[in-house]
């Protein structure tokens, strides 16, 4: 009965307006959800190597305007802008060392051209001069299982390809107990000097490179402030960031015997 009388009434303009607004909000909610879900996936690719002086990845993604000026400035065609289908955050610059590594130009042409500050000149400036050796594009990691130098076969391709030879990669000698008369010449990467340029990855002789560059965030662990090298003055400065964590545990006021007998009341009654 009430339905019948409602049907006869004209729908008021106010009601129409409110319902139309609500419809818009509904569309926006669905669209916003799909859009956000896509973005969440699209920005989550931790294995991208950025140009030198790139700020932290999370800030990089919101700051880079995707103009490609760094790509155009690169004289070696190292840098590329991610295309749809590259499975990297679309339009952002990256490089693939196995194809073309970073040649670590002394004047770092890709950095000063950046209009947005996604490439931060200050982070590669030392004593008022550009210093490509302070770049932190990534960190070379060695898979000792597939590196033939660890098998005992002589190869120092990565060591010789390294632009900071003798600092970022050194060769360590070891005894080859299998033959008893040969030496291992094992490459070792030093994280404090390695810039992640990828010349080693490019030069590696194995089918799939046994030495490869990963973003530092991915390649490195973090000791935290619980562990400090007490014999190293510089390392002790990290104690400044240390903070105590206070935990409180509620101590039971009951006697231990009561605790042991707890829950048996019902059983004892019977």
């Amino acid at each position, binding site marked *: 009965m009430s339905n019948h009388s409602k049907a006869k009434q004209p729908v008021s303009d106010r009601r129409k307006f409110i319902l139309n607004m609500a419809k818009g909000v509904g569309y926006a909610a669905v669209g916003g959800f799909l859009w956000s879900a896509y*973005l969440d996936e699209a920005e989550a690719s931790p294995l991208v190597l950025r140009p030198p002086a790139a700020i932290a990845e999370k800030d990089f993604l919101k700051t880079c305007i*995707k*103009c490609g000026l760094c790509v155009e400035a690169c004289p070696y065609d190292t840098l590329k802008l991610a295309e*749809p289908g590259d499975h990297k955050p679309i339009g952002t610059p990256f490089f693939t060392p196995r194809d073309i590594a970073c040649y670590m130009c002394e004047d770092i042409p890709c950095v000063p051209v950046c209009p947005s500050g996604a490439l931060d000149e200050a982070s590669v400036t030392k004593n008022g001069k550009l210093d490509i050796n302070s770049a932190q594009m990534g960190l070379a990691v060695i898979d000792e299982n597939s590196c033939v130098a660890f098998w005992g076969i002589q190869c120092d391709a990565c060591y010789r390809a390294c632009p900071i030879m003798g600092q970022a990669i050194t060769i360590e000698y070891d005894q080859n107990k299998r033959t008893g008369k040969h030496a291992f010449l094992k490459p070792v990467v030093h994280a404090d000097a390695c810039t992640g340029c990828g010349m080693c990855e490019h030069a590696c002789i194995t089918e799939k490179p046994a030495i490869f560059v990963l973003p530092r965030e991915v390649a490195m662990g973090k000791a935290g402030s619980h562990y400090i090298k007490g014999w190293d003055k510089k390392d002790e400065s990290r104690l400044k960031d240390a903070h105590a964590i206070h935990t409180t545990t509620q101590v039971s006021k009951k006697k231990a015997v009561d605790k042991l007998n707890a829950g048996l009341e019902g059983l004892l009654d019977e």
Partner: protein
Amino acid sequence: MSKIWNNYRYLILRRFVQIGILVLFFGANAWGWKILEGNLTSSLLFGKIPMSDPYAVLQMVVAGAVIASDLLIGVGVVALFYFLIGGRAFCSWVCPINMVTDSANYLRRVFDIDRAQLERSPISRNSRYWILGLSLIVSAFMGIAAFEFVSPISMLHRGIVFGMGFGWAAIGMIFLFDLFVLKNGWCGHICPLGGFYSLLGKFSFIRVHHIEENCTLCMKCKVVCPEKQVLHMIGKESLPILSGECTNCARCIEVCDDDALRFSIRDLIQNKKTGE
């Protein structure tokens, strides 16, 4: 020949400008030309003058990025140009998607698809403003410039300059959508960048004016206009086209055989009189 020029002069000029800009960008990347470097999101003119997409930077601001001074100057240059002079001219004179949607629109006319699809449009032309607002909300929540990660406009111009990848798929979808689903679907209903420039360019000086005394009501202008709601005064009143949704593409001017439409500078005194 002169008739062809007369009927297509602005179209030819627009294609010249659109393709010219892309060629300059392409040349900068491929051969190191120093005329116009970068792409449509952010660029450098003659190695000195920065230009940046104000909508992209607005999304970055909302996402919480620190905006560098170069970008702010670039935004100033572009925003001031469209605000004072160009209006929504970006859409018809610069944006490369315009060539995709114009060709879809042309084919719609050739195959007479419009007449077969007379039902009411399923999407409102105001959707673009909703999507514009939504893009800012999503940018704020996700902490990245939301539209820049899905923009087919960027995919196209960036693709032409730096490599296309699967970007063709997005362009193809827009073409098919405009051709078979909705007339002027992308540019006239959905694109938030178009919506942004509609709002930004609302008060610009270059306007198309209608001279009612010359009008013979042939309605050719309404056939070619991609935003025909802006031509509401045709045959009724001599008025400038003041809607920000007019892209200043000037197709109406060149198809008009009676000189009833022409470009002119916004007449501020007349506006006061008509109360617009």
